[in-house]
Each structure stands twice: as C-alpha cells, then as structure tokens.
C-alpha cells in the first residue's frame, strides 16, 4: 500500500471492521507513514471520546417500571378471555400444548440470553481495545507510576467500589509500569499497565456485571488480543498485541492472586 489510507479505511480501522487481510495491509502502511498513524490515532480518540460524550441522557427514574406495567396490562388486555366456558372447554388441550411450548420457550430464552451475552462481550472487547489504543496513542505516563504493587494498589483506595490484589512474582520480562483510573460502561475501573518484553499490556479490573461465573475467553479486536476471565466479584480483561499465551499467563497470575491460589 503506497497511497495514504483512505478515510473509509481509517474509520473501519477504528471501528474494528477491517478484514484480517486489510488490517495487515493497513498495519504495514502505518508502520511507515507517520501522517496516517496520526490520522488513525485521531479517529480512535475521536471514537472513544464520542462514545463517552454520547452517553449523555440518563433514563428518568420510573420509566422502566411504567413500561413494565404498560407491557403487562397490554398483554393482559389482549389475553383476557371473553368466554369463560370456552377456556374451560379447551383447558386440557391448552395445558398439554403449554407443557410442550414452555420447553421450547425455555430453549429459546436460553438461546437469546447467550446471544445477549455474546453481544455484551463483543461490546466489552471493543471498548477495552479502544481504551488500550487511546492509552498508547496519548503517549502519557500512567496516573500512578510504580512497579511496586504496594504503591499501585493503595492508590485506588476510595477511587473504586471494590478491592483487588496484585501478583508479586511476575515472569522475568514482565513488569508493572503503573495504573490508571478509567471508566467502562460509566463504571470506574482499574487499568493496570504492564510491559511484557517490548509489548504494552492493559489489564482492566472491573466489578462483575452479572452473577454468572465467567470462564476464560479469548478474542481479537483491531489486531489486539483480548483475554478475559471472572473471579469472585471481579472481571479481569487484558488487552495487548503480545503472544496470547503470554497474555493468558499474566491474566492467570492476576486471577490466582485474588483467591490466594
């Protein structure tokens, strides 16, 4: 790719919409073109800032309850029997059908829940990747600069509604650089900044969003590897361009130290 990256491709890069082939070409070009790198960073920062600024209007208190009531009265209104005798006559048949259909509905509900969970996971992957890219792009140091876990952890006291532990014995080429207080889905989270070799890593510690246990998941977004796992009341999400095995190793260390394993 000798020409500059088109505006459409810069947008697709920021939005995680490039195919792996396109991404490879774009990355090659970015490595040699400061102007396009700068333009790509602008798009990414703009996207991150607009995502935050766009979440502007909080839902008024009571709207959800009102809609629930409306939905129930709407459904009941449409389902109200006009002839009790007809219901009695068909009750047995309906009961049998309900048994069959309730099984099907439960299956469908399960499928929809997993679809929702998948969408939420994708959104989380996208948001943490954007935050990681924005951190790299800003070129600023961490808000708390220290490789000492006894300095980094206390820095979050009073800033986060949860607590966490940090591992002491990191592999030889892995180093804690510091941390930032940042926001995911409008919730304060800890962004721990590590270096593995020459690769930068962001590890986000967030309060678990659902009560369900979260197994380890691995994904890829905008060329970055994303590994996430849940432990206790915490979700751990790590983003980097390092070897996924090394990333998973770091996540595993952080996970184990939460439970004392």
């Amino acid at each position, binding site marked *: 790719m000798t020409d*500059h990256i088109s*505006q*459409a491709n810069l*947008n*697709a890069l920021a*939005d995680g*919409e490039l195919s792996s082939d396109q991404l490879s070409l774009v990355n090659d070009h970015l490595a040699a073109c400061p*102007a396009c790198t*700068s*333009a790509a960073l*602008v*798009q990414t*920062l*703009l*996207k991150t*800032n*607009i*995502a*935050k*600024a*766009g*979440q*502007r*209007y*909080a*839902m*008024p208190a009571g*709207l*959800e309850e*009102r*809609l*629930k009531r*409306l*939905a*129930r009265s*709407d*459904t009941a209104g*449409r*389902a*109200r029997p*006009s*002839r009790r*005798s*007809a219901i009695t*006559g*068909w009750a047995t048949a*309906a009961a049998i059908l*309900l048994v069959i*259909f309730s099984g099907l509905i439960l299956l*469908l*509900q399960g499928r*929809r829940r997993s*679809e*929702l969970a998948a*969408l939420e996971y*994708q*959104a989380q992957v*996208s948001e943490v990747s954007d935050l990681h890219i924005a951190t790299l*792009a*800003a070129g600023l140091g961490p808000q708390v600069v220290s490789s000492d876990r006894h300095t980094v952890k206390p820095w979050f006291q009073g800033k986060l509604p949860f607590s966490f532990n940090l591992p002491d014995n990191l592999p030889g080429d892995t180093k804690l650089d510091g941390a930032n207080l940042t926001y995911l889905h409008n919730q304060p989270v800890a962004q721990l900044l590590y270096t593995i070799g020459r690769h930068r890593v962001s590890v986000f510690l967030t309060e678990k969003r659902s009560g369900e246990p979260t197994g380890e998941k691995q994904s890829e977004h905008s060329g970055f590897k994303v590994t996430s796992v849940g432990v206790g009341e915490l979700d751990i999400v790590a983003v980097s361009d390092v070897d996924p095995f090394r990333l998973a190793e770091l996540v595993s260390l952080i996970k184990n130290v939460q439970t004392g394993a």
Partner: protein
Amino acid sequence: MTLLSWKREAQKPGPQASAFEDLALPLLPALHNVAFWLTRNATDAEDLVQESFLKALRGFAGFEPGTNFKAWIFRILRNTYLTSRTGLEATRTVALEEELDEQHPEGAIDRQTPEINLIRLADRAMLHGALEKLPPPLLEVILLCDVEEMKYKEIAVVLEIPIGTVMSRIARARTALRKSLQTQNTQARERGA
C-alpha cells in the same frame, strides 16, 4: 364458532411477554439516550421510547429468534421516530447524500495537522456541541456506531440502508465532528486572546 375468540387470544402467552422483557428492558437506557438525542426533548424522548417499546412488544411474535434483537428494536425506535412529529420535521430538513457530501467534503481536514491534542483535550461540552450540530442522518449513524457500538452490518439493518452508505455517513459524520471541534477550539482561543 364460540371458541374462536379464545383461540385468537391464546396466541400471546405470558412467557413470550417475559422473554420480551428479558431482552428489551436492559436496552431501555440505550434506547432512551438515542431517543433523547434524536428528539432533543425529554417528554418526546419518553413518548418515543414508550411507543417503540409497546410496538416491539406487540410485534415480538414476528421477531425471528436467533437474529439480532438490539438491531430489531432500534429499527422500531428509529421508524417510530421518523413517523413522529419531531421526526417528520427533521426529515423535511434531511439532506440528500450529495448535499451531506458537499457540506463536509472528504479531505476538508488537513491530515497533516496534528489534532490528537485537540481531540484529547476536547471537553464534554465541546463534544456535545459538535454532536448537536450534526444533521440527523449523520447523528444517528454515529450514535449507533460509537455509543451503541453496533457493527456496520447491524447499523445497516437499523437504518435500512446499504453498508456502503453506512460507511460513507460515518466518514462524513467524523469529518464534520473534527471540523466542528476545530472551529470551537479556534473560537475559544479567539475569545481568550
């Protein structure tokens, strides 16, 4: 036939409404946020969300399981908005694709000029101002893409336009936002000088 009425009413069982609530209720804050951006009015936004919610509930039987519920309900919200009073007013002023292009031609921003600091330092009020200046077709596409984090394919479903049009509108929206931030920044500096 005395049993027809019962047969017709039994097509809407309770579990279906419950499944609908499970899917729709978590999306209410996002629907309300987008509704407020589109209508620019608290009462109209609530009315729009309520009407869309009930339309979606009544049409839930037509929702195809396994397809994207979020895109489906946002499309209902958007279509409800387009047929509302505020939506009709907005559609009268909706620019054609070519006109949108003329307002903010691609390349209007000098890509050699570092803007990173400008965007990083842009405060929320500046970003809100820039979003408010976007024409509705560009505002809705950028809200779905950046705030709702929808994929281009999902946005195409919501807005009922081709993916190519989604991409070009996103490009125009971001060019317009950058231009607007630059203008606001220049004006702020002039005021400060």
